[in-house]
């Protein structure tokens, strides 16, 4: 019985009519699919191909650019952005090489993300999924975020099944394993080991059908990879997400607020930057970053509401939008 997942999972389109027939014989594509591909590839229908292809190339470029713009709009993350642009260029060049018949390296796009919580790992993973979909590397481009509890089972054999199910749901998209190092924490006898082995096997079995991202704190991820030397070679791409600096955090605060139709008074803006600058280095490791600012701003929004309640009838549109330094300071 042919594996039905091929129908929906990622596979690059066949390049020749002969390839279409081979895939069809192997049970990889349906009759309808084979006819569709033949229609595209047949030389006698070539005219229709060129007219169809050009706009689709156009729209592909546009979709890629929309995704990249979203990435570039993120605050900070200079190195991460650079890396993503590199990956994009690499993928497109490899695809072009295939088109002109040159040897192309098999694309291993599995990655390790290291960085503290709230430094944008999940956001970037989600964007990468959509980027790979636009580049036709992944068929769906969705992101499935899981952690140890989603992969590890309770009895022998349970883990492999659980992990395989997760992989199945991630096919065509990105599988994001948060705090991946926790899979190795229990030692040799722990089921986490089984989850790792199953993931590695799935990377082989579903080559090119999904992108696996292992994420976690920098030090723990380094330890995790050193414990599993086999893993390191399977993840060619390492992206480090540095903690945000005070200036970036203020920019994040502004973005966050403007998305909710709030704004800071110039005074509040300046004071916030100063506060963050002064307290830098004293933040708790887990409290840091974008999440810290978000909590601060959410608190400020509540205090502003309390402040306005006293004279709500007189509050102007401007008043309703503006957060003062006092609103923020109340939560420090």
């Amino acid at each position: 019985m042919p594996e039905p997942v091929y129908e929906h999972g990622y596979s690059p389109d066949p390049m020749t009519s002969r390839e279409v027939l081979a895939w069809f014989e192997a049970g990889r594509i349906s009759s309808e699919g084979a006819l569709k591909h033949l229609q595209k590839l047949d030389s006698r229908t070539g005219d229709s191909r060129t007219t169809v292809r050009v706009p689709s190339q156009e729209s592909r470029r546009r979709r890629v650019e929309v995704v990249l713009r979203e990435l570039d709009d993120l605050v900070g993350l200079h190195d991460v952005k650079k890396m993503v642009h590199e990956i994009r260029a690499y993928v497109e060049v490899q695809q072009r090489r295939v088109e002109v018949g040159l040897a192309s390296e098999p694309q291993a796009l599995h990655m390790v993300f290291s960085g503290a919580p709230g430094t944008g790992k999940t956001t970037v993973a989600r964007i990468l999924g959509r980027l790979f979909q636009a580049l036709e590397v992944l068929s769906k481009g969705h992101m499935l975020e899981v952690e140890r509890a989603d992969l590890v089972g309770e009895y022998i054999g349970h883990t492999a099944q659980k992990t395989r199910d997760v992989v199945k749901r991630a096919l065509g998209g990105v599988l994001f394993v948060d705090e991946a190092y926790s899979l190795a924490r229990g030692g040799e006898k722990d089921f986490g080991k089984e989850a790792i082995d199953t993931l590695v096997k799935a990377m082989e079995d579903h080559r090119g059908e999904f992108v696996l991202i292992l994420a976690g704190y920098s030090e723990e991820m380094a330890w995790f990879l050193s414990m599993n030397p086999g893993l390191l070679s399977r993840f060619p791409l390492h992206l480090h997400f540095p903690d945000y600096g005070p200036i970036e955090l203020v920019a994040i605060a502004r973005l966050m607020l403007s998305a909710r139709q709030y704004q800071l008074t110039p005074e509040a803006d300046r004071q916030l930057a100063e506060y963050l600058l002064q307290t830098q280095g004293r933040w708790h490791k887990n409290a840091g970053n974008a999440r810290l600012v978000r909590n601060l701003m959410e608190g400020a929004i509540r205090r502003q509401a309390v402040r306005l309640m006293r004279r709500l009838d007189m509050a102007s549109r401007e008043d309703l939008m503006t957060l003062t330094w006092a609103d923020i300071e109340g939560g420090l």
Partner: protein
Amino acid sequence: MDALVIGKPNVGKSLFVLNFASYLGLREIRLDVMSSDDRVSVRRVSLEDAKRKLVSHTAHKTLLPRRVDLVLPNGKNPKHLSIIDTVGISEGIHHVADVRQAMASTLARISSADMVLHLVDVSRLGHKSIEAPGPVDEEIARYAKLLGPYAILANKVDKPGAADGVSQLREQFRGIPVIPISALTRRGFREVKALIFRYMG
């Protein structure tokens, strides 16, 4: 000229080919059986024998494309027509590798055919059975109409309820000639012959 007879399993391709050959005046046919490595074995049989051997009610009776050569009288220049009977193309991914291979040999022939005659079981329109018109028929139509002469033969019009089917089919495949036929009773064969002759020039 090669006319490829194509369609889903059990729509009556083999019966059509044999009865149509008989209609065109043949009593005995040379059966060329093409195997997948393009080797051809030849047998001479009467049409009656051929029908008994080759036609059945079960799907995928025909597992190799089969060619029937006809010489049509045309004054001093007799015309040569080969009708190629093919393996039925079923929906989705067939679970038997041999059948997939056989269907692939059919798909491979579409682009080199001079003409494509696409048989549809018009009495089964809207049904769920294997021979009922479905997505595969739409894809065949989309592909074949780009290649050259192409017509849909709405087969089994002798069955009850088929009349409505023909008009529905014409609606669905606008711009493509749809000829109602019955491979069994030979209805519509005159129109098919006229169409083929027109394309043979």
